[in-house]
């Protein structure tokens, strides 16, 4: 009994430790004060400010558009790469796979500095091009990583079966291979969006000077500690958190339903 209470208590403690900062942020998004920690009565003013702040709305749009563009491109390249690696000869496939995964392990700051260096060499430093390519470098390995297992699960003969039935290689790819690895492609895409949305380091090193994403904007805004020039960001952070929770819940619920359906 004591053991049980202790284990529950430990779990609660860990969860409190993880979530208290965010909860604090959420709570203080409902008061109108410049400094966190000061309670000036309950109000929705920050939320009202947030949606009236044109700059923040524009930056939000920037971030989402950047994430979508980078994720779509990364998903296309990553899926093509995974399929290419999968169907290569073993001698070629193993090293290719290893190399494609190095950016995942590599420290992001190293990637960011290398990208900055490369783009200044080719005079494309701090352009939209360098920004998008930077994000693709970030996301593509994860797409490869999530598509690869799906390819391995696939019956190796189905592609040949499609050819055998008269499909050209590209028809076979789109009608037979892609549908079977689609769940891997989707998860790669989602992962890319998440990665791109909250990336700071690569963005900071590759973005055009006048361009900001939420990460870079928030970072600049709160550089001076808790004394934020734009308290509306608290409301934005709280909203992002809630949207994320909703997304995770939705995904989990759907997965649960699917499993039941399979039974």
């Amino acid at each position, binding site marked *: 009994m004591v053991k049980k209470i202790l284990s529950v208590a430990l779990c609660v403690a860990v969860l409190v430790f993880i979530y208290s900062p965010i909860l604090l942020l959420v709570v203080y998004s409902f008061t109108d004060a410049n400094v966190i920690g000061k309670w000036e009565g309950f109000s929705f003013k920050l939320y009202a400010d947030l949606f009236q702040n044109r700059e923040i709305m524009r930056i939000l749009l920037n971030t989402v558009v950047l994430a979508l563009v980078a994720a779509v491109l990364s998903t296309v390249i990553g899926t093509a790469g995974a399929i290419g690696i999968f169907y290569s000869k073993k001698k070629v496939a193993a090293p290719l796979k290893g190399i494609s995964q190095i950016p995942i392990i590599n420290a992001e700051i190293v990637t960011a500095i290398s990208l900055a260096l490369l783009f200044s060499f080719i005079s494309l430093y701090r352009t939209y091009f360098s920004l998008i390519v930077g994000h693709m470098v970030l996301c593509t390995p994860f797409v490869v990583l999530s598509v690869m297992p799906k390819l391995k699960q696939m019956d190796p003969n189905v592609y040949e079966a499609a050819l055998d039935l008269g499909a050209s290689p590209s028809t076979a790819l789109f009608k037979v291979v892609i549908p*079977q690895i689609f769940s891997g492609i989707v998860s790669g895409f989602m992962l890319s969006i998440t990665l791109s949305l909250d990336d700071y380091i690569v963005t900071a090193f590759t973005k055009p000077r006048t361009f900001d994403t939420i990460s870079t904007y928030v970072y600049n805004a709160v550089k001076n500690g808790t004394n934020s020039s734009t308290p509306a960001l608290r409301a934005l952070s709280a909203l992002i958190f809630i949207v994320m929770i909703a997304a995770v819940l939705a995904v989990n619920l759907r997965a649960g339903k699917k499993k039941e359906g399979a039974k």
Partner: protein
Amino acid sequence: MAENKNDAMNSPSKAEKIIEIVGASKIFDDTVAVDNIDLYVRKGEFITFLGPSGCGKTTTLRMIAGFDIPTSGKILLGGKDITNLPPNKRPINTVFQRYALFPHYNIYDNVAFGLKLKKIPVTYVNAKGETYTKMQKLTRREIDEKVKNALAVVDLEGFEKRSVSTLSGGQQQRVAIARAIVNEPEILLLDEPLGALDLKMRKEMQIELKAMHKKLGITFIYVTHDQEEALTMSDTIVVMKDGQIQQIGTPTAIYNEPANAFVANFIGDSNLFNGTMVGKMSVRFCNRNFKCLDDFALHEKVDVVVRPEDIRMTDADKGMLKGEVISVVFKGVHYEITVKAGKTEVVVQSTESRNVGDVIGLDILPDGIHIMKKEFTVNRYDGYITKRNTVAFGDGEFECDVTQLYPGSLLDEEGYLVTADGEKLDLTDTDVTVEVGFTDIEISDDADAGGARGHIVSIIYKGDHYQVIVRTEENEEDFVLDTEDLWNENDFVSVKIPPEKIRLSLKQEAKQK
């Protein structure tokens, strides 16, 4: 090699060749999967590639399908070279071992997959009365009709809307067959299609496939490692081993007249004996002469196959062979009785039973004895190691290197063998298999010079050398050797073999002392 000639003789139909494989080889990295095979398939025939796993049968099928391109050689379809044609351009469809159905489609869409891609020429007449043809896709109605018919052929009417995962293995295989035949291919390739099914289902499907072949009238090329399946279904069987064709023939021919020991062993149960021709249509094995129906050169070493069902049991003293029953196993339709006759074990199948320990006679009629050319390149003997660490075989005793039996071993002063792990072994009386190459044996007039003695019973001139057979007196053991010197028949000679040329291998682990 019994290749095309045999095929032509045995093939039931004299129809045109639909597939011809000319000198095709396939090499993967360093392994040779298919080694320079020649083969043809007649239109409408049911041909089976049979062999153990790794024999190249599936690779051959994949080359016909177009999934693998031969490293060298050609594949012709109706006389046209299709060696480099991609699979989607060949009028050939495949049924895969693991079905390879498309799990994201329902049964209808699986079967209709090929039809939806197909374009057929349609002839129109325009306003001016000129005719012209256009390549057109099949209409929905045509596709519906064809899918329905194909599903009817495989007994799956009404399954159109079901998803693949709700079907049993047998049903999935039927869908795979329907998906292939719906395209009306000229050739249907089947790669061990029944391998994943249980025995009862497999038997049913064998009969159905055979019936389907009759009904559709198209060429079936079937791959299996199951000899019974091959015998039941095929018009022609191609037996393969190590990427090479061992024999091509009808099931009856392959069973009754196997081309070599491998085929005899692989197809059905058989007793294999080492024999020697001792006269016109007379062969000696198991220390007895038997009349037979095959004629080979006098003194030629041959392999003798006797099917267990061709041996009759008689009273002890009335048979040609005499032996003791050492095991009796009931097999349902018959008993399998193992008889020890002299040194050899003979397996007999009979509906009558005997008791273990009975001494019985065995009779073999001439038509039950099939003689095959021995494809040997070495002399092989059963021998044993003596106290002096020499080896006794072939009615003689020879110096040899016993350390080759255990890699990394040494002999100590007392004559024990010390293995690489430091274990001490006494090899006395260890049974070994001895191999000696034809060119490693020398003969000498001096009767005491070698380890064994005998008379020369045969000398055959082989172009640049003579092949000489020396037979010992006691147990009539033969030494076959190649020499450039001319000897006379009946010379009494001794046989010399350099110790390093005697290759030994263990029959079983030496008893450790």
